């Protein structure tokens, strides 16, 4: 096993590049099949890297020295000497969504992340991660719209695919043993492809719009260990306007003849504003074997003053709490070293349709399975059951099961050489 790991690591840079491109491609396939991904830039991805997926996505105040904690850049200061962390993940999702009269299920499977982190100097660590920022994947059929100037209607079908990626560069520095600061630059980029088509009398019409968004978002984070086993943390994500460009193609049939009205013509589209996001978190050891992590985030969507044709963006609160149980890190029995996790996440939503906020919750459970004895390498598996929306009125209720598998691996640089 050990030998194999080493071999793999040798090819890591090449594999990493393949994955980077693979991930970007995978994005355009659509990671979600949520009808809610219709709005804004799509469904904002909750899953992160490593252990926090099993802990209700809480980790701003989580001091993590053994693997990447991507939720707070200051945590990158904690990377141990000679360690190189990397994390590769996949996510599978089964969505069931329903409204008053219909229900349907869909499953998707995709990459969730690629990340690595390393130490630069004493108390100075850096990390690069590529994670999906938003996912778009929906199909809505039979949208009925009035034909102006008549009593008739037309039924259109709308599909959306794509999403944005978040390529982040993190830097964490420890001002002291107990106080760490971090900065983060996120390159957000990606395409959202929307297609709408309908038939009226003898004619068919289809509009394909590929919207490309890009922008750089800056964030800062801090962690402070008040006591040995009690850490508080905070993150600030600065607001940013993502620039949008749309490429439009229009097809139609007229008198049964197919006509391309527009062929990939460029047009401007209004920028999409991401709000100021403040996060607070804490973590503490309870008794001896339990670690508790809790986060609160507030995202100031109100001040972006954005709206969809069916709703407006309003301030969002996210509460997350997670617990990890570890019997004995150095236990002789394998199962003593396994980490058991559970968590809960409540998100009151950032979009209100007819004054109904689309809120959602997720219950998570996870396992951290150690890989080998000499490193902190871990196979992190999480399962989450979530629900979003409500059936009343027009909203779509969505239930989803998510499984993430993360290879959160540590390679020990230089240390091996001594043995050789």
């Amino acid at each position, binding site marked *: 096993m050990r030998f194999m790991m080493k071999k793999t690591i040798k090819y890591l840079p090449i594999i990493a590049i393949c*994955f980077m491109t693979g991930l970007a491609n995978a994005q355009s396939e659509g990671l979600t099949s949520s009808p809610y991904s219709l709005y804004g830039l799509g469904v904002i991805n909750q899953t992160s890297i490593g252990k926090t997926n099993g802990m209700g996505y809480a980790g701003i105040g989580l001091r993590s020295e053994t693997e990447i904690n991507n939720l707070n850049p200051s945590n990158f200061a904690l990377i141990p000497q000679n360690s190189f962390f990397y994390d590769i993940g996949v996510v599978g999702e089964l969505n069931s969504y329903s409204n008053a009269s219909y229900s349907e299920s869909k499953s998707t499977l995709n990459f969730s992340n690629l990340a690595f982190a390393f130490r630069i100097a004493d108390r100075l660590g850096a990390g690069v991660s590529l994670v999906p920022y938003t996912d778009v994947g929906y199909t809505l059929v039979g949208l*009925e*719209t009035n034909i102006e*100037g008549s009593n008739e209607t037309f039924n259109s079908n709308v599909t959306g695919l794509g999403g944005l990626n978040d390529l982040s560069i993190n830097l964490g520095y420890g001002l002291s043993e107990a106080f760490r600061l971090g900065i983060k630059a996120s390159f957000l980029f990606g395409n959202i492809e929307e297609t*709408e088509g309908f038939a009226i009398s003898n004619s068919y*019409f289809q509009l394909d719009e590929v919207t490309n968004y890009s922008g750089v978002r800056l964030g800062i984070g801090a962690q402070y260990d008040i006591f040995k086993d009690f850490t508080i943390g905070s993150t600030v994500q600065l607001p940013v306007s993502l620039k949008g460009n749309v490429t439009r193609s229009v097809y139609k049939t007229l008198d049964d003849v197919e006509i391309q009205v527009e062929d990939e013509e460029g047009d401007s589209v209004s920028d999409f504003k991401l709000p100021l996001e403040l996060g607070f978190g804490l973590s503490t050891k309870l008794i001896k074997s339990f670690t508790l992590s809790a986060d609160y985030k507030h995202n100031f969507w109100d001040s972006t003053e954005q709206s969809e044709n069916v709703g407006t963006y309003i301030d969002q609160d996210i509460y997350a709490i997670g617990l990890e149980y570890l019997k004995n890190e150095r236990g002789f029995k394998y199962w003593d070293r396994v980490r058991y996790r559970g968590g809960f996440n409540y998100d009151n939503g950032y979009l209100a349709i007819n004054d109904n906020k689309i809120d959602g919750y997720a219950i998570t459970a996870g396992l951290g399975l150690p890989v080998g004895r000499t490193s902190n390498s871990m196979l992190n598996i999480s399962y989450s059951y979530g629900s979003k929306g409500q059936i009343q009125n027009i909203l779509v209720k969505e239930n989803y099961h998510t499984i993430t598998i993360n290879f959160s691996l540590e390679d020990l640089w230089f240390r091996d050489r001594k043995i050789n």
Partner: protein
Amino acid sequence: MSLSIFVLWSCSSENYNASDFLAGEEFTDSNIRVALIDTITVEISTMKFDSIVASESSRVLVGKYNDPEFGVVKSSAYMGLMPSSYVIDSEAEYDSIALYMKYDSYYYNDTLRTNTLHVKRLSATLKPSEGDYLYNTSEAEYFEDDIGALAFMPRPMDGDSLEIKLSDALGVDLFEKFQEKEITTSDQFKDYFKGIALIPGQTDNGSVIGFTKSSESIFVRLYFSEAEETERVQSYLDLNMDVISSPVPFFNRIESENPNTNLETLSDQEVNLDSKDTGGLSYIQSGVGIATRVEFPHIKNLYDIKGRGTILDAVLKIRPLSGSFTDNLILKDSLSVYIVDQNNDLISQLLVEEIAPVQGILNRDNEEFNDIYYEFSLGSYIEELFTEEMETEEALILLPDNYNSTVDRFILNGSGNTGYSTVMELTFAIYDEEDD
């Protein structure tokens, strides 16, 4: 090992487009606005061709009737003949001569009235005064005296032939010319016998009847007998309609005299009789060459609609004038569309993708409510008008597709007749509202 599994997984992707989920119209709105616009200006007028090519007519048309609006409508046919053989035995004896014509099922107006048909002998060879064609207005010369005549009740749907006995004087003359070998070539025959004219009776008010235009269906049969060993045997020689010579020595002369005062003003092809000046009416009479002219002068006003849009459909609806058609003056089920230039010279038929002719189909779905109209899908044409940079000087005209072989007539509600006016229903999709 584990990495290669990822690579394999990456290949699995769902088909996201397969969904039947009806999210509900409130869940989202369409990004596209669709409007039905029926305020497009349609200018309707009537024009009349100076002449139409008649030698290419697909049938022989003979008959006469009085139309309350179009006047005395009359069609006479003129054609050359060609013998099937030039040999008659010297011992043969003349018997009789008759003209046969086969109905082709076309008729217009009342077939329950008696038609008269006068057969005349042409006094001059049929040929165009200039060019290659004979027109509906061409003149032919013939001897006054009938060589045959028949009063008959037309039975156009039977598929039978009409038999008209011709004068024995002519029969004997022709018989002897062949028997004595005075005519042995087609040129000699054509020189001697220029052809026949089929003229309806002066006082007829019946129907215009169509006969099949072919050498097998229209012929003069010269009967004679030949002596065999024990008895005399009937034989004959046919003079078939000449459809081989070039230019074809044939045309239908179609005319209508004393029409209503509106139609009388159509003295020249370039006259466009605006339907606003004729009580909102426009006219079509095939054969004679009266057509309804349609123009869309303000189609580019669509650009005034805010945003970027495209035409999805354009349906022109024209209503025939209520009471203008009867069981006899029947309304045909379809109309074709042609393009004319500013001088009303015919350019071509209106086709979609240069193949499919545009047709106006009579919609009788609500006939019981007196709601009956011709529907034309003009989407491609309107789009061309809309997107072309130059304002066109061309116009559309409406005529039956075999307009040189029929005498169908139509009285239509043009513009200005409130409630019944011609309307264009345009379906327009606006897919980018911000754009100008």
